[in-house]
């Protein structure tokens, strides 16, 4: 798969990672943006789990 900028992405996940990295490099330093490119899916999973935890916490606080 050939990208617009001539880079080769092995799969669509890599393309997503590259897109995220392009966004993240706007406000993150380059090595951290590279980490985001590699672990964006893990970050997404962690974010979703944390969101569930936050949802539960919000429900608990609402019951008071």
């Amino acid at each position, binding site marked *: 798969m050939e990208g617009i900028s001539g880079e080769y992405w092995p799969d669509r996940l890599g393309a997503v990672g590259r897109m995220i990295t392009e966004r993240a490099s706007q406000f993150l330093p380059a*090595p*951290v943006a590279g*980490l*985001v490119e590699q*672990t964006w899916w*893990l*970050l997404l999973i*962690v*974010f*979703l*789990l*944390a*969101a*569930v*935890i*936050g*949802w*539960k*916490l*919000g*429900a608990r*606080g*609402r*019951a*008071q």
Partner: protein
Amino acid sequence: MSVSLPFLQALILFVWAVVIGIAAGWLLRRFFGLFRRSPRRQTEISSTPKQTVAADHSRSRSTHKISDVETAEASRRTPITLAKRRSATQGELEEMARSASASAMAGAGLSAGPQLPPVHTDERWGLRGVSAEAPRSDEPWPTRDGAAEIHSSSDWKAQKTGFGDYAPSVEADPVFRPLDQAIAKTVLGAAVSADIDPSEPAETLSHSEAELTGSTLSGSDTSGSGDEADGREKIDPAALTAALWRVRAATEGKVRPPFPPSLTDETVRLKIQSREVEPGEPSDIYGFDSAALAAARGAEGWQPTRKSGSETQGESVRPFRPIGDLSALARTRWGIPAIPPETLDETVTDQNSNDPIIDMDAEVPSGRLWGPAVALPLPSAVAADALSGRESSTATRDILEDFDADGSDVDETAFAIGMDNGDRPDHLAEAADELASQSEPANEESVIPELEESEMQQVAADDEALASADEVGTSTAILAPGPAEDEEPSVIESDFEPILKGRGTPAPSPDDPRVSPEEPQPIDLLDQPVPESPPAGTEDRQAGDDLSRIKGVGPATEQRLHELGVTRYAQIAAWGPEEATWFGEQLFFPGRVERENWIELARQLVEEQTAQN
């Protein structure tokens, strides 16, 4: 253990993801929680679990009464969403109803009245909700069902239905109408004492208002014969309920209840009866039985969910404790209807009103009782100012002006406790004069404050003279006795020359009442020969080096060094590490001497001086 930088970066990334995720979820839950139905709306669907229970009941009994068949058909007609729920078993429903009644009783007793039990045990009243059939007006009040009472007992201590227990109905939705004795006494003007006679027909609300208010109270006197000896009036529970309903509608005044609590819409009635004290039973039911309590602690479902119930009570354990909060009960998945708030007392719905932590809206008393918001000067300082005739400092004057609101005369008591409005130094001086005149003979009354002042002045002058005896020749110290330097600088400046020229102290002005002829004159040092050089051991300040040339030494530090006796570069250059540490601590900057390398700088300055010389 070495942690690589990418690992740390990734760790920080994941921590951020967790934090942001939790915050987002929490916010979303709170946001969507705004559109949820409030728990008290659940009373609208209160008919569904009743039908489920009835169907379950009919299945278990496998009887074929007409009513049971009807309720089974009704349960089949329930909506699909509700039918998907697992129908609660009889035991579960009983347990939940029991916990509901216990929590309602616990909340009702929280702040309703005094915590101590009544003095006379026969004045205790039990409220009992008795399940009733479809009521008719001419039907007598339902009698007690002994087996049902024992079965649905919630008195954990007595193991039978006791005082204040509800016997909840499982065949109908529970309607609790707790009776507040204070309300009953206030409204009805009589102590509530009604023993329900089964033979007497129940009163209905179809009676007129006059009957409800007056005649029903006296009309039920004919029923009970045993309690008439006590001289109390008999009260019909239906009339009492109606009266309570009217009182509640009148006092709360918010929304008029949809219908009065009549016998036709109630399936659970309150049965009010006096509690007979068995001879074998201990008279104090609030007594603390440690063994039974320990046994009950292990019981399942006893543990209260809120800590406040057990913590605030401490060791004085009441027989009823909050088992669960009502909202949690309302959120049960089986849809047990919540207790309608309008049927409860205020103490049940606002059972946290006494808790200052939970109840954030409680009024915090504010006012001057909590103390003045300004730091008042010490009374001794004010008194010293007043005695020395000195103008009080600006801060003190500002503070005292706050108290001087209207300039009214000073109350003696207010002055004594320090809350007077008057001018405080003047008043203190007057008070000191009064005290002195009372304690001393009359002929010296005008001299007494002056004597004290003159003594103070003498001591101060002696001290000053001794302190400045060494630097008379070089310094420009003022040897004039009397008030401090900050009183009148201009006067001191004008007196400066005559003192040094040996003309003695200026003659006191005749209109100055503070200076008396008996005042001892200060030591005149001007007759003594001026020493040629300062005595050994004292530092010559004027001849000292400019310590501020050392980097890091400012004016304050230089002054502090002078106070410590360090005036020359050579002194600092001769410091060892111990001296450096000690001086750093004395200058309130430990380690500063070493850090800023004062010793080396002082050595350089000493070399510079020697090169110049």
